[in-house]
Structure formats: C-alpha cells, structure tokens
C-alpha cells in the first residue's frame, strides 16, 4: 500500500459519461495489487481543499507505467476528473481493501463473472488476472449488464476472447443488445441449466443487482463474492463512514466496513 503523487498519463472518453484514466504508480504497485482492490484518488491538487475527500475507484487494469481506472461521472468529483489535464498531479492512496479470493479459485473451477454497468472496471481486473495466470477460458462465463448497448464497455475485446473459449452473455434494460431485461435473469437461467456443475460467482455492479445475485447464489448453493460500492472518507478503516450490515455478527457488532473488510465480500456474510 502506497501514498503517492500520481501523474495523469492519459484520459480517454468512452461514452459521454464514462472515461478511462491512466495514472502513474510506484514501481512495486503492480506486485502488491490483487484484483478487486481500489485506490483513493484526490480529484484536486494537493493543497486544494475543495473537493476535500479522496474518491474510491476500483483499479481496472495494470499497465507497464501505472494503471487504469474506468470511471462513470456521477457527481462533482468524477466530473472534475473527467476534465483533468494530462500531466496533472493527483494524490493517491492504494491499493486498498481486499480483492477477489483469487487464491481459492481452482483452475478447473467454473467461474461466472457478472458485471453491471461500471462494475465492469473491477471485473476486468479479475479477467486480466485469469488470463495472466492461464486459467482456461472455456471455464469462464462473463455476463454483462447495462442500460443500453452503447453503455457496454470493452465489448469488442470480450468478443475476441470468445474465440478462445470465453462464454459471453449480455443483458440490456432496453433490449438494444442481448437479453432484454436484467443480468440476473441470465444468471438464473444459466444456473438452472448447469445445476450439476455450480460455478463460483464473482460480481461487481449496482447494489440491487448484487442483492438479487446473492439470493440466487444462496438458492443454488454457489459460492459468491460481491464487490460493494460505498461513499467513504478515508478508505482504510478509520472513518467508519462506509459500513454495511453483516449477517453473521451480533447486534453489538452489526457492521462491516466496505473499505477495510471488503470491498469484496462473501455474499453469505452480508445482510443486503
């Protein structure tokens, strides 16, 4: 984990409200990184007091000179970042949190990756890891959901991987591509069709999607890990601003911290 000044190396608009930003990182950053981890990034210069707090972003992809974030504009902070000049220095903190349980995913295991909207950022880091570690692509089932086809990101790259064995399914709210409806419709159908060979589910996306997915996983007795999103002030477990309810603990200790105990949680432990 590092506290470091980071240079904006590249900024690419992907859709009117999503962009990719490439940031420089210290030398050993990549070695420490576990897919699913995040950084806290300032959206203003070091002595600027407004906006004051750093923002949490999933690390999407490691690059030789740093890493990439995939960001959807949702408020003032992300709007400022969207217009950041190349060469700007940001203040960064990370990698933070617990990533996906990559060390427990066997290479012969069926893997279901489920991404909703901008949740794809975190899932790409996991897919990259699987490719790097030579997981057989025929065991990986990538299920994407978006509001509409123009919001499906990196789709050409995923399509190329289907030629090497990756299974790809798509759901859009408006039916402009793939299944018309929810990504969880696809998950439900696929779990029923393969009831004898349950996958491990790993997912990132909006909370209602994760909640539904967690329920499906319990019903199908699948291990399921969900990456949660939350507003947070610190990102390392001290502000207690990002708590979410934990199923397994008593009323005296009902919370887990998304930043420090997550952001990736075993779905069975959460009260979503």
């Amino acid at each position, binding site marked *: 984990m590092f506290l470091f000044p980071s240079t904006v190396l590249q900024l690419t608009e992907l859709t009117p409200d999503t962009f990719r930003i490439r940031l420089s990182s210290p030398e050993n950053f990549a070695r420490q990184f576990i897919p699913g981890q995040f950084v806290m990034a300032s959206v203003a210069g070091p002595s600027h007091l*407004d906006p*004051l*707090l*750093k923002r949490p972003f999933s690390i999407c992809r490691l690059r030789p000179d740093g890493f990439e974030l995939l960001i959807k504009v949702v408020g003032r902070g992300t709007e400022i970042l969207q217009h950041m000049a190349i060469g700007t220095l940001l203040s960064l903190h990370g990698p933070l949190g617990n990533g996906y349980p990559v060390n427990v995913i066997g290479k012969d295991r069926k893997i279901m990756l489920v991404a909703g909207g901008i949740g794809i950022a975190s899932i790409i880091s996991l897919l990259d890891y699987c490719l790097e570690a030579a997981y057989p692509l025929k065991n990986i089932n990538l299920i994407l959901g978006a509001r509409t086809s123009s919001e499906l990101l990196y789709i050409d790259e995923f399509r190329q991987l289907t030629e090497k064995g990756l299974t790809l399914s798509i759901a859009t709210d408006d039916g402009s591509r793939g299944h018309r409806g929810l990504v969880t419709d696809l998950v439900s159908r696929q779990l029923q069709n393969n009831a004898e060979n349950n996958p491990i589910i790993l997912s990132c996306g909006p909370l209602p999607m994760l909640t539904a997915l967690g329920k499906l996983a319990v019903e199908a007795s699948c291990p399921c890990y969900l990456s949660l999103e939350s*507003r947070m002030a610190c990102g390392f477990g*001290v*502000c207690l601003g990002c708590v979410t309810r934990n199923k397994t603990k008593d009323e*005296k200790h009902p919370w887990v911290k998304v930043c420090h105990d997550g952001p990736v949680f075993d779905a069975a432990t959460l009260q979503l």
Partner: protein
Amino acid sequence: MIDLSVLLGSGLRLKNPVMTASGTFGYGREYEPYLELNKLGAVVTKGLSLLPKPGNEPPRIVETPCGMLNAIGLENIGVEAFLSDELPALKAAQATVVVNFFGETIDEYEELAEILDQETGIDALEINISCPNVKAGGLQFGTDPRMAASLVTAVRRRTSLPLITKLSPNVTDIISIAMAVEAAGSDCVSLINTLTGMAVDLQSRKPVLANITGGLSGPAIKPIALRMVHQVARNVNIPVIGIGGISSTNDALEFLLVGATAIQVGTCNFVNPAITAEIAAGIETFLHESSISHISDFIGSLQLA
C-alpha cells in the same frame, strides 16, 4: 535544537503540539503504516464507552464544500476490548496516549474514568461532553455550564490522570462552559468539536444522512474554530487545545498563534494519513526559519494592537 515540547497542565508534557482528533485516528494502530506514532505529540483514541456501541445506520457521511458531515454515532469497541486489544499496540509504539471517553450518565463517566485510571500506558483522558450525533452522547453535559462542571467534578474525583474536556461549539457562549470546567478541575480544554449541520437530497427530498443531522468538520469550520480558541484562550488559565479544520502547518501555527498550546488534526487524517507527522515537521521548520528556539515563545503571540 528547537524545543517543540508543550506542557498540558501539570502532568502532561508532549514532545510536540500535534495531536490527533478523536474519531479520526481509530485506535492509533491503523496509522502505523503511514507514520511513527511516537513522533506525534499524542494519539487521541476514538471515543470509548463502557460497552461497545454499534453506532448509527448508514448513510453516515457526506461531503460538503471544504468539509464533511458525519453521523457515525460514537461506534466503538468498548473500554474492555480497547484495553485488551488496542492499548498494547499503542504502548509498544511508545505513543503518548490520550483516551477519549463518554457516557450516558455521570455514573458511566465516573466508572470509565476509574477503569482507565488503573491502567498503565494512558497519559491523559479527554472527556467528550460534546458529541452532537447521539441523543445521550454527552451533549446535555456540553451545553450547560453547571452540568459540564458537575460532570468534570465527578470525573476529577475518580482519576489523577490529566483531564482534557472537549467542548462543543453548538452553544451560545463557549467561554462560560470553558470557565466552568476549568473551575471544576479540568486540566485543559480542547475545542471545537463538530458543528451540527445537515444535507438534503433534492431528488428524493430526504435528508442525506440516516441520522438527519450530522457534525460538520474540515477546513470549512476553521475560521469559527480559530475565533472560539482565541476567545477561550483569553478567558481561561488552563491550556487550550485547538481543533477545527487544520489541514496544513500554517493552519496549525495559526491556532498556536491565537493561544492554543497544542492542536488536534481531524478530518484531514482521512485525506492524508501522514498529515500529522508532516505538520509536526513543518512546525519545527517554521520555528527554525523564524529563529524561535522555544515553541512557547510563539504560542499566544498574536498582536492585537
């Protein structure tokens, strides 16, 4: 060699005036990856209660211009878990430890003071009479000079540790509260705690925080804090610890200039976990460049004429 040490009352000498504000520094250990705890004047723990407290429902925080609102609700692990699980690490780090604590009744404050008094490795106590986010979190003690004084008198009887009383800014006259706790035997006062505030969401037409209101902190409150520290420092004879939106060496120096003997850094610990160590080093550099060899020569040197 510049002397950065400050005396908080008779029993507590800090190696420098930079402390951490309760609730923004966990139990100290969380910051060990970023700085050496024994390089700070003191580590002030998250506020402790007799029993663990779960705190409020989320959402608990929201950013506001140059600051944030929080309504954590005094979530903490309780005094027992602190003593067994957290204090040993602070001792091992050779940190100067100030334990912040609160109760719902005077009895609870007294019981806590007695428990903490018996421990080694605690250098001072900070009484929270001012958390705005829980109904019984001490606020009733913090807004009335007589109540504040009776609480401090009761706690004073149970401990010989240096006592710091942390004051609320959400009062008509903070000077009268400060004078009342001074008379009741508090060794220091620290101020300010957060200012009660609110944020609403126009789309949902709901409050942003589940608790409806929260405590405003960060650089936005610094001018108010500076004014209150200035006023209190001129009206009490005990040391004053300045708190409120400190985010740089210059901010810290401003509080010292108006009469604070020490300062606490709060919200900015979230933004830069190494900020307290950086400010301590920055103060030393400033004094060196200003040819001031004792920090006490700078404290309260505000020119009013």
